């Protein structure tokens, strides 16, 4: 990246190709299989001679998947959950990150440690007590219950805190001189200048909650609030004995498509964001 000389093949690079080409092919096998299966008619799949390229390409599996499960509903629920989580997180983490990076106060160290606890004890390990809380609050089967446990994010707080620290103090002082307080500074100075970190956090947050499975599974038992991943699991478990693989793979594509498409288009951004998420930002 940093003023590297033009590409020239060397012995060195050949090793890289020898390692990466076969590994990439193996890594892509599940993806090929996913697409190939979803496009086959069921009888062709159950003939013993396996083929990668379907002899007849059909879209009926997708049509059937859409009709046997309310995927439109699942889509709406999932979009609601991920956008609600990110919107609330953005507020809570920018306020906390501002205090942790710019203000000196008693108990700051202790509070940082308390935030660190969430990093190591994720909501996933606390499903039993959190289920009871949601049950008592009569919030089972709501998108709110799926999202609420993620409203505070220690990871996001640390990421933004790091970004806020890199912003020169004079920027904040100019806001203070105009009579603005901390909130004004956050909205007009810190958030705009920390944009790369916020984008990184947004991508990591949205993709991880889009893909979330276990907690939504626990707090929902009707289609009302169910998200895509839970709906997908229910679809396969509804069918007795062995699943209808053509249908299952078509449904899987319906679930994974938006994120994978976004990843294909914005690959560089996604990868940079996940690099930042190594908490070194």
């Amino acid at each position: 990246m940093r003023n590297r000389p033009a590409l020239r093949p060397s012995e060195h690079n050949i090793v890289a190709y020898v390692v990466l080409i076969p590994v990439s092919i193996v890594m892509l096998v599940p993806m090929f299989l996913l697409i190939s299966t979803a496009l086959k008619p069921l009888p062709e799949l159950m003939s013993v001679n396996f083929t990668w390229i379907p002899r007849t390409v059909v879209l009926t599996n997708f049509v059937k998947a859409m009709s046997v499960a309310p995927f439109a509903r699942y889509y709406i629920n999932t979009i609601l959950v991920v956008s609600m989580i990110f919107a609330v997180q953005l507020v809570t983490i920018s306020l906390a990150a501002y205090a942790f990076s710019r203000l000196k106060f008693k108990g700051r160290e202790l509070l940082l440690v308390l935030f660190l606890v969430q990093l190591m004890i994720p909501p996933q390990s606390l499903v039993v007590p959190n289920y009871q809380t949601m049950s008592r609050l009569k919030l089972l089967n709501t998108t709110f219950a799926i999202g609420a446990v993620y409203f505070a994010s220690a990871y996001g707080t640390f990421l933004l805190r790091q970004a806020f620290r890199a912003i020169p103090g004079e920027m904040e002082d100019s806001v203070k001189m105009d009579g603005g307080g901390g909130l004004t500074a956050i909205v007009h100075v810190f958030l705009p200048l920390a944009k790369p970190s916020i984008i990184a956090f947004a991508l990591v947050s949205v993709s991880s909650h889009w893909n979330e499975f276990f907690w939504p599974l626990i707090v929902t038992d009707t289609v009302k609030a169910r998200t895509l991943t839970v709906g997908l699991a229910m679809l396969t478990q509804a069918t007795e004995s062995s699943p209808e693989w053509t249908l299952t793979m078509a449904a899987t594509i319906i679930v994974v498509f938006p994120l994978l498409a976004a990843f294909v288009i914005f690959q560089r951004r996604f990868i940079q964001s996940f690099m930042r998420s190594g908490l070194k930002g």
Partner: protein
Amino acid sequence: MSGHRARAWKKRIAPLLYILPAFSFLAIFTYYPIAYSAFISLFRWSTAYPKRVFAGFENYIQIFHEPLFGVVLRNTAIYSLSTIFFGMILGFVFAIQINKRIHVSGAFKFALFYPTMIPMAAAGLIWLWIYAPTYGLLDNFLRLLGLPNAGLLYRSNTALMCIIIVSVWKHVGYYMILFLAGLQNISSELIDAATIEGAGSWRRLRSVILPLISSYTFFIFIINIVDSLQSVDLVYIMTQGKPANATNVIVYYIYQQAFRFWNMGMGSTLTTLLTFFLLCCVTIVFATVGRRVYYEV
């Protein structure tokens, strides 16, 4: 006087108000549940005892005498350690290769990283189909080689390995990216200096690169112990702990106790034990690399 007070208020209380929103959610969904499950773990509370009865440490004594608990711990340790071990080694090797000046590195990054973008549940389904008896890809492949159908996912000595393979496939790209971030932080002058001193590529790796990313590596390791709790998604989709609990891991076991057998007392006891283990991990992270990673500019 009032001016002084107002200033003191501003210095002491105002910062806490910024923390308050995040802290409230942490209090409700992290701190309170930790305390609550520790409390409930002291009760008999299940379908047999719908009204909870105080039982002291009975649940703890019972769980440590339960042979299945040992099996679950063993499975969890094997799953987590092998996923992290193989994932990190492969991730590191791939990161070193992809960090070289090569063509189409974007395509390689896609091939290695796309599983990170797929939900665990979907990954579980795709691989369930790969492992499916007779018609699945694996059995087709084995037939091609003239080998008998294996049904590896359905045999108690290989089922866990099958799930670990899925997990490594799912995580290796992510580990690679984390290592890539670490590698790109190493200044090229340092590498060049080593090269000028006559260090070969193996020597550069051992004496320059590895020491520089070692604390980072440790950090990735600890963070990914937490990440490995997600194995529950794969287990739920692929095996439900079968065959004969060969793939039963801790979070799935908690799920079974609490939501299949509705034994909330035992579910809480297991949650508390898991929390305690993770808190020990926090302490280790904090006592070692965490402090540097979080506190320094």
